[in-house]
C-alpha cells in the first residue's frame, strides 16, 4: 500500500507543479494581453512640412522624422537613425534655413520607471539630421508644431504652456500658461503671438516678453491653427463646428459661421474668401469680410484637413483617401484615390502637391501628384 500511496502523492505533486506552471503561463499571457489592449498608444497622423524653396519635404510619423527629396521622393536622412520606441513624432516639423524642430508625443515609460514621461523638443541640423539641442521642460506632449519667428522658437505644449526658446541652444526664454493644452500652431505678426488653446480662449502674447496682450473666448476649443488676413483679422475654426473671424485687437468677434459637421482644420484664405471643409463631406467658401456663405459643395468624403493652394484651385484630401482639385468656384476637378486615410493637410512642393498618408497600403507615407493629378512619386517608410 505504501508505494501506492507514495505514487499517489508523487502524481499529486507533479499535477500541482503542472498546474502551477499553467497558472504562471496564463498570468504572464494575461498581463501581456491586458497591457497591449490597455496601453494608450501615442498615435496621430503624419505631420508634413516643405522648405520655402519646395525642394525638400519633411515628414514626422511615429518613431521617425524623414527628410525627403521633393523632386523624386528619395530619402535624404532619417532621425533618429535607430528608432527609439519611447519617442513618437507627429507634429509637422518647423523649418528654418539650418534648423528643423521636431516635438515628441512621448510614450509609456519603461516598466519599472519611477519617472513621469518626458517630452522632448529637439532641434536638428537640417543638412544632416544631427541633434543640435533637446529641451525636456514640457510635461505634456508636443501635439502642435512650433513656430520660428525672428530669433525665437515659440513652442505650444499640451501641458498648457507656451514656451519661447532660443533657437541656438533650446533654452527657455519665457513661458506663458493657459488653462488647458495647446494643440494648435501659433502665428505671429512680429510683435504678438496668436495661439488658440483647448481652454476655449485665443491668446495674444507679446513676443518679446511672453506677457498676455489680450484673450478672447471662442466658445469652444481651438484645436487647429489660424490664418491672418492682410488687415490683421484672425480666422480660425473651433470644436464647436464654427469658423470665426476676430478683430486684430481681440476686442470683438466679427462673425461666426456654423458648419454642418465638425471642422478639424485651419481655414485657408485667398482673395477675401475663407475656404474650409468639414466632417460632413462639405466644402465651404465664406466671404471674409462678413462671414456670409459664398458657396457650399459636396466633397467625395469627410474633409478633416486644410487644402493646398495652387493657381488652378484648392487641392483637398478626404479622410476616405480621395485627393481632389476644386476650383475657386467650388467646381470639382481631378480626383485620385489613395489606399489609406488622409488627415494631414496636403502641401505644395514646387510643381507638386504632397499628401501624408495614415495607415497607407504597403507602408506608403507620402504620395506626390503634379497639379494636373498625375502621379509623381511615393515615399515608403524604409524598413
Amino acid at each position, binding site marked *: 500500500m505504501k508505494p501506492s500511496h507514495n505514487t499517489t502523492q508523487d502524481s499529486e505533486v507533479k499535477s500541482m507543479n503542472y498546474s502551477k506552471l499553467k497558472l504562471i503561463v496564463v498570468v504572464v499571457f494575461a498581463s501581456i494581453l491586458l497591457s497591449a489592449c490597455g496601453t494608450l498608444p501615442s498615435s496621430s497622423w503624419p505631420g508634413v512640412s516643405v522648405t520655402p524653396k519646395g525642394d525638400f519635404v519633411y515628414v514626422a510619423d511615429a518613431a521617425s522624422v524623414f527628410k525627403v527629396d521633393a523632386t523624386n521622393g528619395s530619402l535624404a536622412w532619417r532621425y533618429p537613425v535607430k528608432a527609439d520606441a519611447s519617442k513618437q513624432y507627429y507634429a509637422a516639423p518647423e523649418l528654418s534655413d539650418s534648423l528643423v524642430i521636431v516635438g515628441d508625443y512621448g510614450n509609456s515609460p519603461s516598466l519599472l520607471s519611477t519617472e513621469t514621461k518626458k517630452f522632448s523638443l529637439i532641434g536638428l541640423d537640417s543638412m544632416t539630421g544631427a541633434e543640435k539641442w533637446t529641451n525636456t521642460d514640457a510635461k505634456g506632449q508636443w501635439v502642435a508644431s512650433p513656430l520660428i519667428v525672428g530669433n525665437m522658437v515659440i513652442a505650444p505644449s499640451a501641458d498648457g504652456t507656451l514656451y519661447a526658446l532660443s533657437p541656438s541652444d533650446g533654452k527657455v526664454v519665457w513661458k506663458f500658461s493657459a488653462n488647458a493644452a495647446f*494643440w494648435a500652431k501659433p502665428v505671429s505678426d512680429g510683435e504678438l503671438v496668436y495661439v488658440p488653446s483647448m481652454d476655449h480662449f485665443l491668446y495674444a502674447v507679446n513676443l518679446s516678453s511672453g506677457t498676455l496682450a489680450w484673450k478672447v473666448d471662442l466658445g469652444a476649443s481651438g484645436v487647429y491653427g489660424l490664418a491672418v488676413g492682410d488687415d490683421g483679422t484672425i480666422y480660425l475654426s473651433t470644436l*464647436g463646428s464654427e469658423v470665426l473671424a476676430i478683430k486684430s485687437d481681440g476686442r470683438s468677434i466679427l462673425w461666426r459661421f456654423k458648419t454642418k459637421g465638425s471642422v478639424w482644420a485651419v481655414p485657408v484664405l485667398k482673395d477675401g474668401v475663407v475656404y474650409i471643409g468639414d466632417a460632413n463631406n462639405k466644402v465651404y467658401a465664406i466671404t471674409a469680410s462678413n462671414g456670409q456663405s459664398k458657396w457650399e459643395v459636396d466633397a467625395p468624403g469627410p474633409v478633416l484637413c486644410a487644402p493646398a493652394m495652387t493657381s488652378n484651385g484648392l487641392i483637398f484630401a478626404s479622410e476616405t483617401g480621395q485627393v481632389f482639385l476644386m476650383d475657386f468656384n467650388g467646381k470639382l476637378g481631378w480626383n485620385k484615390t489613395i489606399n489609406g486615410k488622409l488627415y494631414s493637410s496636403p502641401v505644395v512642393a514646387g510643381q507638386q502637391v504632397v499628401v501624408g498618408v495614415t495607415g497607407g497600403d504597403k507602408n506608403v507615407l507620402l504620395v506626390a501628384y503634379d497639379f494636373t493629378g498625375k502621379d509623381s512619386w511615393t515615399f515608403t517608410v524604409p524598413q
Partner: protein
Amino acid sequence: MDIWTILILQPFTNVLLFIYSVVGNFGIAIILFTIIIRLLTHPLMVKQIKSAGAMQELQSNPKWKEIQVKYKNDKEKLAQEQMKLQKELGVNPFASCLPLLIQFPIIIGLYQTLQQAIVTSPLQLLSLTRHIYPGFLNVANIIPIDSRFLWMDLGQPERLFIQGLPFGIPTMAIIVMVTTWMQSRLMQPPADPNNSQANMLGGMMNIYMPLLMGYLGLTLASGISLYFITSNLIGIGQYAMLGKVNWNNLNPFYKPQPVAAVKGGVKASKPIADSSPKETRSLPESSSKPALTHKSNGSGAAKAKKANMTKPVKSGSSKFK
C-alpha cells in the same frame, strides 16, 4: 460602427461624459460611473455568489464524495453521476459562471470607455467626438476634459513626487495592488482539504492577481487605476453586504481551520480515497437529500446539521460564509 461599439462603448462613453458634464470633475465622474455600473450588475453578482456557494456546498456533500470515490476509475460514469446529483439537488454548475461571463463585457467596456474618454491627441479626440450622441451632449462644452484629479493627471501613469525624494512613488499602483489583494483575500472561499489543487490555485491567485493589477496600475493611465481601486472597494463592500467576507483573512498570520476537516474529522493532507468511504458509510439514507437550495444563504453549520454529518460544524466554520 460595430455592435460592440453601438451596444457597449458608445452608451458607456456618453453616460461617463454626461456625469462629467454634471459634476465637472473627471476623477469623481470615474468613481460615480464605476459605482453605477457595479450597482447595475449587483444582481448578477449576487446570483453568481449564491451559485458558487451552492457548488461549494455540493462538493462537501457526502453523496458527491461517495460517487467520486466509487467511480474514480471511470471518468465517464463519474461525470454522469455528478450531473445526476446536480440535477437532483437543483444545482446548475454553469449558474455561477454565467453572471460572471455577463459581467466581463461590461468590465471591458468600462475600461475601454475610460481609455477613449481620456484623449491626448487629435486623432483620439476625433474618435471620441464620433461616439458622442448628437443632441445628448455638446462636445464644445465638454472638451477639454480636465483630467486632473488630486495630484494626478488621469491621462498619464501616476507618480507622487515628494520633496527630497529623487524618484516618484507609484502610489496608485500600490493602492491598486493592496485593494486587489484585499479583495481576493476577503472573497477567498474556505480551504477544501479534498481539493489541494484548488487551494493552491486560490493561494497563487492571491499573489499573482495583485501583482498583475499593480503592474497595470504602474504602466497605464492613472484614470484606469482609479477605476480599479473604486471597483475593488465596491466589490469588497458588496461581498460584505452579502455577509460573504471573512475579515480574518486579511491577517496574514491567521490560519483558518479547513471546513471539511471539521465537518468530517479528516486531515487536510489525507487523500480522498482514504477518508471518504468511512465518512459516507456512516451517513443514513436520509442524507441523500440535504437541504441544499439556492435560497439558503450558505451557513455551512446549518447544512451540515441537516445533512446529519458525523460531526456538527463548530465555530471555525462559521467564519466561512
